[in-house]
């Protein structure tokens, strides 16, 4: 089994991209992988509501999410691994440390807004388009209420049979006159 092929197939099917031009610069925004997303979100663990540093952490979170989402600039794809001096860093860290500091804050905020929209769109699309197959035998594919009704009908039929039996007994009791309260009077 070729896992690389499988990985690429899943990636291809769940890849969402959006082109956006801000101040004449075109950016290709995509989605971070689940692992990258988890790494970025791990920053939440540092959050302390009572701390003054919370706003800084949120700012950092926004920048990180934006960095990991930028896939290409001016149509030029940034590779997954980038060589910076004598180090090799992953794309998200490269964008975070080398590119974003050179961009104005408002531009980063605008890019972050695009990332948020894209995430929401992707989630909506995936949830809408995924189809589930619950493996059940055809004969067992009975509607829940239908089954209740069936069982209740069976129980009712049993009860009717019991009542018929009882009615027979009542017939024999008729002579003693105890089948109706009126007859007690």
């Amino acid at each position, binding site marked *: *089994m070729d*896992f690389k092929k*499988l*990985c690429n*197939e*899943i*990636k291809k*099917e*769940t*890849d*969402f991209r959006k082109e956006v031009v801000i101040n004449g610069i075109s950016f290709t925004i995509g*989605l*971070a*992988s*689940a*692992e990258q*997303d*988890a790494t970025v979100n791990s920053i939440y663990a540092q959050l302390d509501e009572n701390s003054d540093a919370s706003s800084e952490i949120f700012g950092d979170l926004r920048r990180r999410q934006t960095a990991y989402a930028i896939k290409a600039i001016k149509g030029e794809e940034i590779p997954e691994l980038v060589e910076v001096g004598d180090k090799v860093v992953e794309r998200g860290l490269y964008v975070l440390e080398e590119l974003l500091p050179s961009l104005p804050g408002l531009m980063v905020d605008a890019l972050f807004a695009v990332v948020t929209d894209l*995430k929401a769109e*992707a*989630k909506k699309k*995936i*949830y809408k*388009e*995924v*189809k*589930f*197959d*619950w*493996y*059940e*035998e055809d004969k*067992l594919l*009975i509607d*829940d209420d239908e*089954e*209740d009704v069936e*069982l*209740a*009908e*069976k*129980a*009712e039929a049993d*009860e009717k049979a*019991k*009542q018929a039996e*009882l009615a027979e007994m009542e017939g024999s009791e008729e002579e003693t006159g105890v089948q109706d*309260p*009126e007859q*007690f*009077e």
Partner: protein
Amino acid sequence: MKVARAYNILTNLIQQGFDAVGLRYHGIYIVLKTLSSKETRLVKYHASEDDTFSMRVYELAYATFMINGDNFLEDRSSNIKNLVEVYKKATPAFLDVLQGALNELQANAAEATEYLEGYSYTDKSRGYWTSTKGSGLLLESTTGIQGTSSLGINTTQAAWVIRNDIMDGEVKQDRDFGNSLFVASASNPEGVKKTTQSVKNSREMLDTDRAELAMYGNAENRRRIVALSQGKDGKNVWTADIGTADSMVAQLDREMQGYRDRHDLFIEKHEKAQTDKIRAAQAEDARKAKELRDKIKNQEVFQGHRAVTKEEMDAHIRGEIDLKQVDVVGGEAQGMFKRGKRVLSARRP
């Protein structure tokens, strides 16, 4: 959950070792399976509990049965590593969908296990037990799926084996008991006859109870469906069935909530009729007493008569006079009554 669905899930859990759900998204088709308790334990060894992301990814890797038709249960150890890498690189939203499906699958399996008692009594279950005797449940030759022997027995299978083993024990016990009775019948045939009848009756009751449980899945569901057929207040039935402990509990529940069956309504009607009858009789008595009081008040009974004196009564006892001959002093008594009324009227302000 309904019985048919629960039984279907239980059949999957017992006969193939897991229940499964397929997810189709464009060109990807992933089949997820339930995790056995042994796999859940293994996941814990792969990642620390603080590392929720890794836990999640390993859970999904262990839960993956097939992707695009390739079986991942074979060559498990290397497949798990590769699947973890695949899921790490997937889009978070896609992972969320997979996780949601797995959670639902696990929850359904847990819920279906509540119907295991009823399922164990079905012919289908007993038949499968007879053919396997609970051994080699996960062998590939038994499940028909490559790689199932690496899954580890699940809790449903373990519980099912125990239940069936107990039922087998009962069969053996019945047989031994029958033999003992046969031996004892030589010395005490009457006693054996009585005992046999008693045992036969209990066995019949047990069999009926189990047949019902097989139909309804479990006692709770039986109670619910029977209540449904009898109507919420049980008024559709003449008398609520109290042949079993469950039906008795159901009837007590109904009584505590104030619901009544037809028998209760009959008794209530009878009691009401009796109460009305007594009240009518009391009202009639009261009316007659009032009439009498009014009559006395108007002095009708005293008009033209007077009371017999003690002396006259003594003379009557001595036989000196006949009371019938005593003259009345009605005119005088009337006069006294009228005078009294005038005096009383004069006193009014």
